[in-house]
């Protein structure tokens, strides 16, 4: 099931979530993301501007890649389960790049019927270089 809900008891430390493959990144997606997020920095839209800024050309909003990572988490655990997501933007994502989001369970804890899993999350490009690294905390449902 694409939008499945994983249960707390079924998750083990060390488990990896299903990888989510996004892209190839196209200019139109960066333009749509600009409109949706309100981030109209021309460095994501205008090749000449991005080159003049010393960035070697247009690159994707870091927040778009973070959105991909969040999607990998919610595709796995269900919408509404993300309590915390923190990332570092480790490398630029360029046009035509393919971004694969991954995650691995680091820890599990339960308190007062709230069941949390902590994950290491990252996204890598088609050359295996990490473009995003971070951590997430998700609340998962338990079996009845």
């Amino acid at each position, binding site marked *: 099931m694409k*939008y499945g809900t994983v249960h707390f008891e079924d998750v083990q430390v060390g488990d990896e979530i299903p990888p989510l493959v*996004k892209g190839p990144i196209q200019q139109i*997606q960066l333009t*749509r*993301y600009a*409109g*949706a*997020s*309100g*981030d109209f*920095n*021309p*460095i994501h839209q205008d090749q000449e*501007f991005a080159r*003049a*800024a*010393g960035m070697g050309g247009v690159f994707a*909003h*870091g*927040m*778009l890649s*973070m*959105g*991909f990572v*969040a*999607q990998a*988490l*919610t*595709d796995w655990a*269900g*919408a*509404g389960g*993300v*309590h*915390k*997501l*923190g*990332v*570092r*933007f480790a490398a630029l994502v360029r046009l035509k790049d393919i971004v694969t989001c991954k995650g691995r369970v680091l820890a599990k804890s339960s308190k007062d019927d709230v069941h949390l899993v902590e994950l290491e999350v990252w996204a890598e490009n088609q050359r295996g270089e990490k473009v995003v690294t971070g951590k997430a905390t998700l609340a998962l449902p338990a079996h009845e």
Partner: protein
Amino acid sequence: MPITINKGILGKEYPPYAVTVERGKIKEFARAIGDLNPFYLDDSVGRASPWGDVIAPPTFAISFRDEVADSSALLRDLGVDISRVLHGEQEFEIFRQLTPGQTYLCRTKVLDVYEKTGRSGPVAFVVRETAVTDRTNEIVATMRHVTVVRL
């Protein structure tokens, strides 16, 4: 010759601003990411959900903007051009789901400003935190933004 930034903004609290979440903006945001989760896009799935309506994707609050308090205001205060900034880090802590029609108050403050010399030269880091609260002043989410300025 590296530029200098205005470090006087350390501790600055920006004026609070209100944002009302629009149903269409949630959907536009999810679609821009390519995340077609029905809990964001399908009103009938939302109605039947524990939240009683569609919810926003985890990073949606990044779209909460106000011209006197957002990143453009930060750049004006720092005295730097937009072509020099990069997004270094971002964190969201989500206590409750954002839903359409709700009005939230955003308060942003500058927590830290520091400089370092990185692989590609001197850079400054500016750390801001935005608290998102509801009408009863209860915390709904916090965002921590780390902006990198190439000096």
